[in-house]
């Protein structure tokens, strides 16, 4: 695409397996709902793809409040995958998204292997769903969630089971709360994942020193925001060097430079999460910033940044 006010044209397109996107900027699941709220601030047709809030088979109430706590350069959340269930999602969210020119990646959550499969099967027939992101890394549910993302066997099992029921591009979302994330990435690649996305939140806790109670009703929750960026960049770099499939990088991206940093580390796409809360225009601001960065550095294709870190 050609950029106004410049004769250099930057190719912003990237590929996640068979899914071709107009630019590398995705929304991080759970921070952008299904896009409706933020469409008041940004045009969805400027974003690479909308990644929806996690969808489970049945309606899920989520955790008790308080569900968030602010921390130094970050925040903890224990929303707990509250969602109306896949039927309501297909009835309400997909039709709304269908009216917009933006690829849709549905984030699938499960409390059991069977649930992941059931949700994936239900979505398979939906033309409005361009890809699935399987969340095997949610620190905020008791059964399932993160458990599936912390061992190679479990991660491989979920991937194999979902792969068997979907022909859509399959992205597995990895947990950072592990000793060796590269090994888990390899095990899901081996089972046919088309891409991996990371990082989900780091398991954290905060205690109120006046009340002596945890700041989150659930006790522990997931840490996100700028605070975790160095851990996320490191993991993206490790995983990108361990697998052949594309990596979606996220964790504390607030600025264009942050997005570039993840791409240099090896991310083909980047996702913006907590930043939406701080600046509801963050997604499009960063898309525009990436184009501008490429022009400034005379880079003709944004994909030239992927893994370009120099040692």
């Amino acid at each position, binding site marked *: 695409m050609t950029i106004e006010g410049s004769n250099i044209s930057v190719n912003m397109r990237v590929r996640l397996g068979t899914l071709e996107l107009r630019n590398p900027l995705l929304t991080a699941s759970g*921070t952008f709902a299904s896009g409706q709220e933020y469409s*008041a*601030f940004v045009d969805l047709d400027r974003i690479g793809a909308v990644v929806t809030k996690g969808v489970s088979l049945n309606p899920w109430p989520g955790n008790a409040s*308080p*569900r968030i706590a602010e921390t130094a*350069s970050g925040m903890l959340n224990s929303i707990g995958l509250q969602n109306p269930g896949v039927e309501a999602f297909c009835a309400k969210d997909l039709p709304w998204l269908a009216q917009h020119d933006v690829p849709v990646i549905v984030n699938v959550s499960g409390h059991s292997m069977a649930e992941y499969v059931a949700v994936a099967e239900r979505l398979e027939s939906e033309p409005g769903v361009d890809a699935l992101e399987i969340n095997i890394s949610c620190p905020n549910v008791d059964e399932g969630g993160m458990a599936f993302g912390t061992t190679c066997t479990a991660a491989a099992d979920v991937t194999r089971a979902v792969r068997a029921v979907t022909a859509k591009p399959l992205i597995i979302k990895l947990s950072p709360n592990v000793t060796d994330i590269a090994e888990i990435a390899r095990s899901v690649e081996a089972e046919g994942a088309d891409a991996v996305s990371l990082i989900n939140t780091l398991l954290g806790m905060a205690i*109120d020193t006046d009340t002596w109670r945890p700041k989150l009703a659930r006790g522990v929750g997931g840490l996100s*925001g*700028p605070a975790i960026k160095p851990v996320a960049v490191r993991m993206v770099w490790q995983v990108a060097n361990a697998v052949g499939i594309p990596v979606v990088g996220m964790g504390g991206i607030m600025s264009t430079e942050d997005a570039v940093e993840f791409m240099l580390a090896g991310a083909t796409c980047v996702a913006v999460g907590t930043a939406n809360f701080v*600046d509801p225009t963050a997604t499009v601001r960063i898309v525009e910033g990436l184009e501008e960065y490429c022009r400034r550095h005379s880079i003709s294709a944004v994909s030239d940044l992927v893994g370009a870190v120099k040692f």
Partner: protein
Amino acid sequence: MTLDAATERMLLEHVSVIANERVAEGVGLLVLESPRVAHAVAPGQFVHLRIERDASFILRRPFSIHRAEGNRLHILYQVLGDGTRALARKERGAEMDLIGPLGHGWEMPDGIAHTLLVAGGLGAAPLGMLAEALAERGVAVTVAQGAPTVERLVARELFEATARRVLVATDDGSAGERGFVTQLVDGLLASDRPDVVYACGPEVMTRIVADQARAAGVPCQVSLERLMACGVGACLSCVVATTSGQKRACVDGPVFSAEDVLWDISEIPPKH
């Protein structure tokens, strides 16, 4: 849409500080030049304010609109933690940005003649605009206001100017009756027979007022506080349990019909 369009849509506005001064013990009054919100805001709505840019606290802070006059917003804020401490340091000319007007405000049904506004501490903030709007419509306003001490009583002029009666209770009796504002409510329900009760304050108080109103058979609206990340309905950090399921305080509230709320004290934001 260009990025500026977001601001054209009156949702994200760059504002500047006109004045910022202490009006009560630990309470400041912030006056912002914010034309778009000032003209669009309804009583009970709030703004989500980005106080600092490269600070270690990253989230916006929600504040009710206490008053809107011309292009200006008045915000009454209590100094509690990092955000409000930083806010208290802002001087005339300082620039910030905010999202708003946000949320579902107070309902003012047609044909109401008498109303009772119950304010606990900073709960007076969102009731200011309401009192003015009701008075403008010729609706009689009675205010029952509580505070720990007289030094921490806020918005007195506004209430004196707009309300037919203002009754006060302070924990130490330094103004009005000694004790909690809730002690005044039963009497006022009986004497004034209001058509609607509007309540805002600590959730323990709001809940008692809701019970008192129910007992008296008077519809009651309450404004609730929840920790809020996005402020626009996307993150589900601000849920309130209601008879019709979990609602988001930032879009379905902060004002709820008291009958609909399934109270859960554990949901009150951290004390200070």
